[in-house]
């Protein structure tokens, strides 16, 4: 056992996970060794067609066996059919004990619970949410879930800490020789950023498409030399669940209030100047912050450099208007973003490695001025929990939270102070997802708390005069006044989830919930 730099008591070894490298603080684990190399292969010119009749044929051809690791990407989001179809096929073929390594799972993947219960899936390394998260939290998986950030995952892949035996890549368009595109096809999802490292490093790569077209495909995101097999199916997903039509800014007054406070803070800092780079999520508050910042940019005649991360119509419009020079897109959220990435050379697809991997010669988050992120809880030390809910259930992934927080000059967490009767500012978060040392400010409807570590920001906000400053202690006290003391979550000792920091050290663990 050791108390790590986030103040968490973590065992030196965890059954089903292995030896623990303890979190020693941000940027404290230097990279080791060389990048992982996958096996060499060739496709002589006698093999000019990589297509196979169905998923089962591809599974056989890939050499997938029980106990191996298979990976997926999540650009089809809640519309995805591919993960479920591949696991159904594995089950039918008698393959068991699989480790699945998705970049994220969604509600549509609750279908997998039957494969977890039957032993087809032994472990999940990736975000779990909804019913699968609940199942894992209650002890329904024999091996702990391993959570990694969008940068931590490609780090684990490129360093060889995780070896992918077969990567299954959902491809909105493919040709018979394995050139893949996300920008075209009826299931178009735009960027395929999260799939790049899998394509590059997996021992075998299977593309699954519902738009097989003659060689060569247009707008190629993943090139043929990574792809071993191509399978054509009727449908890889439901377009309605893949992209949203338009992304609207919320009219919820509470969210707008929080967003306005965040925008005031951004405007007060020295980062709000020509050349600003910016990332927000597609959630209600984040998008509203973007709207306020956009208005301020227009008003003050400020031109930004780039928008990063998950790209929405909102960012596309800002680029068209000249408020950003370029968009670096790891995931395209809506139809406008999908269209833009296929047409506009200034809308650039980037891989997760490029986006956020701390172990390369420089990832995109390092160039980021400002990021606006969410939280389920924040605490006195500015630690942020995005993984577990107030009842202790592991219901969310890390996403790019750790990476952008670590990379950006100004990391802002926006959260309501209370969700219903649950306080979001607490003495100590239940799970540390992102350490407080990389968080600069917490913005709520009750005011803005700036990390005392950033006296420069506190001074800038005071000088601006319109940022409603409070201390974190005041936020916690206000929340407590409303809710009273909360009863602690009751757990067993058994660890059901391991939260890795982006450098591969263990920052926290999640324990099994006690039966009620």
């Amino acid at each position, binding site marked *: 056992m050791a108390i790590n730099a986030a103040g968490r008591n973590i065992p030196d070894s965890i059954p089903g996970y292995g030896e623990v490298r303890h979190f020693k603080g941000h940027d404290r684990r230097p990279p080791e060794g060389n990048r992982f190399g996958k096996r060499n292969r060739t496709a002589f010119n006698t093999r000019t067609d990589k297509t196979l009749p169905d998923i089962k044929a591809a599974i056989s051809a890939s050499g997938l066996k029980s106990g191996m690791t298979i990976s997926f990407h999540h650009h089809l989001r809640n519309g995805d059919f591919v993960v479920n179809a591949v696991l159904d096929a594995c089950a039918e073929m008698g393959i068991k004990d699989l480790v699945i390594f998705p970049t994220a799972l969604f509600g549509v993947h609750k279908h997998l619970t039957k494969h977890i219960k039957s032993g087809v899936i032994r472990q999940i390394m990736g975000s779990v949410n909804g019913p699968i998260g609940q199942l894992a939290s209650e002890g329904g998986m024999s091996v702990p879930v391993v959570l990694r950030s969008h940068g931590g995952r490609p780090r684990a892949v490129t360093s060889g800490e995780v070896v992918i035996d077969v990567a299954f890549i959902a491809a909105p368009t493919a040709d018979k020789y394995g050139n893949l595109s996300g920008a075209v096809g009826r299931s178009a999802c735009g960027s395929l950023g999260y799939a790049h490292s899998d394509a590059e490093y997996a021992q075998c790569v299977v593309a699954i498409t519902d738009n097989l077209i003659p060689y060569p495909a247009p707008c190629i995101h993943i090139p043929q030399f990574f792809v071993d097999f191509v399978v054509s199916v009727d449908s890889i997903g439901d377009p309605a669940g893949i992209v949203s039509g338009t992304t609207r800014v919320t*009219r919820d007054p509470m969210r707008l*209030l929080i967003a306005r406070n965040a925008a005031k803070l951004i405007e007060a800092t020295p980062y709000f100047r020509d050349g600003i780079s910016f990332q927000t999520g597609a959630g209600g508050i984040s998008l509203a912050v973007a709207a306020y910042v956009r208005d301020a940019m227009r008003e003050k005649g400020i031109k930004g450099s780039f928008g990063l991360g998950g790209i929405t119509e909102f960012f596309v419009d800002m680029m068209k208007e000249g408020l950003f020079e370029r968009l670096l897109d790891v995931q395209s959220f809506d139809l406008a973003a999908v269209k833009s990435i296929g047409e506009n050379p200034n809308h650039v697809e980037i891989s997760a490695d490029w986006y956020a991997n701390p172990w390369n010669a420089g990832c995109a988050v390092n160039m980021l001025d400002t990021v606006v992120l969410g939280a389920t809880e924040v605490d006195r030390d500015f630690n942020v929990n995005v993984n577990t809910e107030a009842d202790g259930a592991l219901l969310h992934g890390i996403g790019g939270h750790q990476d952008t927080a670590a990379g950006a000059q100004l990391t802002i967490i926006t959260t309501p102070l209370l969700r219903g009767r649950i306080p979001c500012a607490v003495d100590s978060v239940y799970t540390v997802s992102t350490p407080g040392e990389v968080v600069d400010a917490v913005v709520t409807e009750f005011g803005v708390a700036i990390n005392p570590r950033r006296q420069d920001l506190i001074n800038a906000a005071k000088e601006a005069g319109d940022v409603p400053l409070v201390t974190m202690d005041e936020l916690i006290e206000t929340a407590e006044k409303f809710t009273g003391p909360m009863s602690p979550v009751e757990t067993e000792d058994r660890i059901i989830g391991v939260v890795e920091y982006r450098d591969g050290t263990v920052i926290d663990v999640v324990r099994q919930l006690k039966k009620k």
Partner: protein
Amino acid sequence: MRLRRTKLYLPGNNPNMLLRGHLFNPDGVILDLEDAVAVSEKDAARILVRDVLRRGDFGSCEVTVRINAMDTEFWRTDIETVVPCGIDGIRIPKVENPKDIALMDEALSQIESKAKIRVGKTLIFCLLETALGIWRAYDIAKASRRVAAICPGGEDLRADLKTTRSPNSEELIGPRRMVVLAAHAAGVDALDTVFADITDDAGLRRESEWVKQLGYQGKSVIHPNQIPIIHDVFTPTAKEIEQAKKIVEAAAEAAARGLGAVQVDGKMVDKPVVKRAEFTLQRAGLKAGGEK
């Protein structure tokens, strides 16, 4: 003068809004025990509102409670419960009779002395939601020194006028003019009714500009998103403030020198212009004092 550009209604049965309404920085909040609360929930809402008032956390907002009308069985319990919490005022719906205001004045005085609150602290805001109420607006405004403002109704008034809502609320032009005239004659504020379409920002701005031009000090608000728009309309621009400062300074200088006539930028300025300039500075929060 107290700024009353916006008074935000907070449903008396919604703890979420009761506790956070002031965060939207309206000039005042109205904790509502009347229309927002079903008859079966009156008791529960009253207790909730009392508890929220006791916490006393409303920033710099003027805190008022809309009680139930004086022809209901609830109004006495309402004031007995909320007035001892030390609120700034009560808002009485459907006022038609100056005698009711006198009766309310007396009831408030009794509660205040019992609760050891300065007698006269609790102000009265009168909602005139019937033709008769509008007709008697001046007498109602003069019925007690506590009356701080009179406000024309919206939907109830339309019903009483046997008409319906038109796109530009033409049916309320007359009543609004009568109320603003009565208010200024009686020396109280004229506060306008709510703008019901919470998604029509342009319509809200138009209406706010119009009632400001009529002489209203502000509007009631049913959605927090309306606040910045109304504030924007009712807050003087930098140019207006600059000009007003010049006029007020020139007037002070003239008075100091014992001169009757005031000159600004080489032009003579009348007394009413000086008065208006002072009012502009009050609205901008740069000058204390009131119209009374």
